[in-house]
């Protein structure tokens, strides 16, 4: 547990749980809000019970589109519209490249972190793991993929920032909703790099010793938990949940 133990692993677990609780509460609020709608066009508003949203969503997904030739299987929507995001590609290849790098980078790092976390916990509660799955070994195994996807994410973020700063039309239409989200993502990505660079001793010459690594990593992990999980339902992050659901409900959209 050395990696985190500038402050204890326990503290991190606690923050993880807080983050998840805040996330769940936000999702509850959103689903509750969505459930204030009706179950179909022109119908009276529902009773607002939380199941209404799910019921309406499932009905929309199942419903046949009245439009000629507008048929699409669930799997097509899932792969082409949600994972490959062809609707962005159709409109603008550069923006698609920006987004797919953010998407792939973020998703991969998120999943890696989840796996790491899982094995840390498994070890913590005393279950014997094969050597290859020991957190310390696993961290080394994952170091390269972690690096690769961090750079992929960084590329996307840089394009997004440049776009928002230097294209006047985009800049003028940027509101806090957009910039807070992008800024948060930037801080996380950069803090991840910095803590890693400290760990491998890149900053020793600048008077930052490797022992500063655990607090830096801790900082990165904490804000990641808060920003990448807790903040989702309250911000533009929400699109990563709502957008795929809209695409499913509308069969990939018009």
């Amino acid at each position, binding site marked *: 547990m050395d990696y985190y133990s500038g402050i204890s692993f326990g503290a991190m677990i606690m923050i993880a749980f807080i983050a998840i609780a805040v996330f769940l509460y936000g999702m509850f609020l959103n689903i509750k809000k*969505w459930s204030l*709608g009706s179950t179909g066009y022109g119908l009276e508003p529902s009773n607002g019970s939380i199941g*209404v949203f799910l019921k309406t969503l499932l009905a929309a997904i199942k419903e046949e589109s009245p*439009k000629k030739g507008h048929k699409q299987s669930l799997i097509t929507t899932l792969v082409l519209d949600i994972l490959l995001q062809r609707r962005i590609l159709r*409109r603008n290849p550069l*923006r698609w490249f920006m987004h797919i790098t953010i998407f792939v980078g973020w998703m991969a790092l998120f999943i890696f972190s989840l796996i790491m976390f899982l094995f840390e916990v498994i070890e913590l509660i005393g279950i014997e793991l094969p050597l290859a799955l020991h957190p310390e070994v696993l961290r080394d195994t994952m170091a390269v993929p972690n690096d690769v996807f961090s750079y992929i994410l960084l590329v996307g973020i840089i394009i997004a920032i440049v776009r928002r700063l230097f294209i006047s039309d985009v800049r003028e239409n940027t509101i806090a909703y957009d910039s807070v989200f992008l800024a948060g993502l930037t801080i996380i990505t950069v803090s991840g790099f910095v803590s890693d660079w400290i760990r491998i001793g890149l900053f020793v010459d600048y008077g930052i010793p490797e022992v500063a690594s655990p607090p830096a990593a801790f900082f990165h992990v904490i804000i990641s938990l808060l920003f990448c999980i807790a903040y989702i339902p309250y911000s533009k992050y929400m699109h990563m949940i709502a957008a795929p659901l809209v695409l499913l409900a509308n069969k990939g*959209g018009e």
Partner: protein
Amino acid sequence: MAKRTPSINTNNLTAVQIMEIDACTRCGECVDWCPTYDAKDKSPGLAPRDKIKRWKSFMDRSYGLRAKLFGPKPVNDDEMQEFSDDLYHCTTCGVCGTVCEVGINTVELWESIRANLVKRGNGPYGKQNMFPKLIKEYRNPYMKDQKDRLLWIPDDIKIAEKADVLYFAGCTAGFNQQVLGVCTARVMNKLNVPFMLLGEEEWCCCSALIRTGQPHIDDVPKVSAIHNVEAIEASGVKTVMFACAGCYRVATIDWPRLIGRKPRFKIVHIADILADHIKHGKIKWEKSLNNQIITYHDPCHLGRHCGVYETPRIVLENLPGARFVEMDRIRAEQRCCGAGGGVKAGIPDLAVGISSTRINDAQAVNADIMSSTCPFCRRNLGDGRDNVYGVTGTDFDLRDNPENEMQVEDMIVLVAELMGLSTKIKSQMEEE
């Protein structure tokens, strides 16, 4: 402190639509395509993205985290009225939905929010509030007597007592632009496709009420839908044919929703029937367009809303002597003519502003004739043409186009003309 109540409610929005509001990523693609925003000097409030942002802010102030913790924050009346007026500038063309990167079904969203605003007392806009009363009382928006539904039919047209096909003429072809009705009927007669009409039993499709967010007022559209569907089913026909994009859209998309089931008949557009006849070489042409350049404007309600793009093109491409060309922005990405969504009635200047841009698209490909398959496009593109060329309305005439102005005409009138059929309506025939 007494808790305030939320300023807005969720009337008329479905649970999925409320989620759609939260899915918008503010990518701005829709803004680049919106015809109203473009025609109104890019007035920021008209951009689809901005409308979603404002409704989201109203929702958040009423139901978001802060509202949960500290009570809802009010939305003041001016802000709401401004939002409503902006929303009523939309023609419900739907191109914002076509290009939306997350696939939001925008047309339905605008219509649902409109209905919500009508219930609050903010909508509709201008003269649009007359529609429900008129259509309920007269069963058509032109204040005509239902008994006169068949008055447009001259003696030369044969209407079958019993047939497999029923022609749902619609109020506009029946009362207001009768040339469309007579041409459709004469073409069908000539092709030996017998058809019935509902006559007095044909009630307005209520497109205008649904598009302007007034479907709930006395349930006029629902009552009409039930009436029309039952009357058609009672007639025993297998197929209902439309020549009006507005009616076709209502029948295809809104009827099943309003009556809660699929109607037991097939819905086709006259273009489908004509294309089929052309494919089988069954149309005998008598005249030629003499090498004129013709282009096609997809009506939003037929194309983007219902997915009918191909058959009108097959017809126009095969008109004798036609040089068919495509303009910029066609099919799913078509640029709206500006008439829809109640804009022609509510904000006529805006409608002409938008249609003038569309006329420019046709000018750019040197079109001699711009054709469409919707009476509202025909009227509004005609007005746009008059605006751009500084002339006043001339009906299509193969022989007489002295100024070499672009002509705007419905596909069915061109077909009738080129099949050598009369395009004269009853009153013109009586004059002679």
